[in-house]
């Protein structure tokens, strides 16, 4: 079964897409409705898995798999933080912790209405026609009426290392900065706590000694 370039067309596929989308939205709503924080975390994960499934039906095999991969790890780590920092991790007592709930609902409804009106009012066939007469991104053969169709994984790989390399550079440096900043913010012990006031200890004074002799 070849799962690339799966095109969605026809009424049945439309219903399937709509159903999967409804599941994603329902699980998103469930995040803020359930009392148990652990279940809220995994409801969010379910929403992401539904969106990844939709990406997969569009032919984006790599992006769908990467979304599931990244989000699962993130939600597992978030579950730990939920249990650590939230009052009601198991949902044993019903509670709602909202402030300014009504104005937030008003803003959210406005956002939804504006976006949906925009989506259904725009003449997309004109946009599609305009896009198909533009040249390609410079990586593939740029004929008179658009570039050739490349496998999506190959397409994004070539783009990120070629025409869109700025994205790769920025992402790489940003992630490195994030790792360093998060580590600095998260630890409460610095060099002087570990090695003494004059940094003279040979072995660091850690509560959990590691596996290496250093």
């Amino acid at each position, binding site marked *: *079964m070849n799962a690339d370039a799966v095109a969605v067309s026809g009424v049945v596929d439309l219903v399937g897409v709509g159903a999967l989308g409804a599941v994603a939205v329902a699980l998103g709503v469930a995040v803020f409705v359930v009392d148990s924080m652990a279940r809220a975390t995994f409801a969010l994960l379910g929403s992401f898995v539904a969106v990844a499934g939709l990406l997969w039906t569009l032919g984006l095999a*790599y992006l769908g798999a990467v979304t599931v*991969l990244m989000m*699962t790890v993130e*939600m597992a780590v978030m*579950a730990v933080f939920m249990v650590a920092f939230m009052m009601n991790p*198991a949902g044993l007592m019903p509670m709602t912790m909202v402030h300014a709930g009504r104005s937030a609902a008003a803003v959210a409804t406005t956002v939804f209405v504006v976006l949906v009106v925009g989506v259904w009012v725009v003449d997309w066939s004109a946009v599609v026609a305009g896009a198909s007469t533009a040249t390609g991104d410079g990586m593939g053969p740029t004929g008179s009426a658009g570039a050739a169709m490349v496998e999506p994984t190959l397409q994004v790989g070539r783009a990120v290392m070629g025409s869109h390399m700025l994205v790769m550079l920025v992402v790489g440096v940003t992630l490195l900065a994030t790792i360093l900043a998060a580590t600095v913010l998260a630890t409460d012990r610095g060099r002087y706590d570990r090695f003494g006031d004059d940094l003279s200890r040979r072995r660091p004074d850690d509560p959990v000694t*590691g596996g*290496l002799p250093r």
Partner: protein
Amino acid sequence: MTAATVLWVVVLALLLPILQTRSLREPLRSGARLLAEQPRRLPAPDVLLGRLAVVLVPSAALLALAVVPVGFAGAAWLSTSADLVWFNAAEVLLWVAWWCAGWSPNSVLPLVGAYRFLAQGLSYELPLMFSLITVGVAAGSLRVSDVLLAQQGVWFVVVMPVAAAVFMCAAAAFASWGPFAGPMGRDLGGGVLAETTGPARLALSAGRALFLGVAAAMTATLFLGGPAGPVASGWWWLLLKTVLVTAVMVALARRLPVLPPDRTVDVAWVVVLPLTIVQALVVSVLVLRGVL
């Protein structure tokens, strides 16, 4: 295809218990005992997440099996342009499953085991990803059939031994077995599985054994040439390689003690991760020079 998959699922689920207990009847007997056992329930468990865990472990194993070429003709159920990432995603679902399995009985020891698993998971995940990336770099593609094609000259275990070793260790770690059985260890009274009994325990244990078998089959596919090879070729050759990989893992695990996670985390981040990056660098240089 279905017949081949059923055969593989049965063989892989039983392979690890048979090799570990060195008896054919013992795994079946303990499985039957678990089926008939009355499940024990503690006050206020999280039933939804417990059931999610019980369903997720075997399902993740089956999802991972979908990209292994188990068919009688050497095809897999699924051939996407990102098979390696699919396998990685199926394996990561185990994180959710083991955390939920530890959370749901509302008991301290399983929860501690679940947290230990997450700490261990963070340590092995990056080296595992880098070893998969190295395979993708050498094959020029993330598709398993392309990986098999690229191994027609030489098996990848010769080109990237560090990646192969890391993959096998990560397989033991995400099944929380052997030297990486800290989350289910004796010092926690069974850890994540301490309070699980009955059919749920059977599903979790069988799913865990199945996933380890699938990982062994994936090792044979990615690093040992899969169904093809210099001596023979065919689906039974892949099965034989899988059995050999599992036997090697069981033999090694018998000689190693259970490594406490607070020691393996240090070694994983400071030694193993740089090694996998260097391995990826070496393979990339080889690919650029045209050797691979």
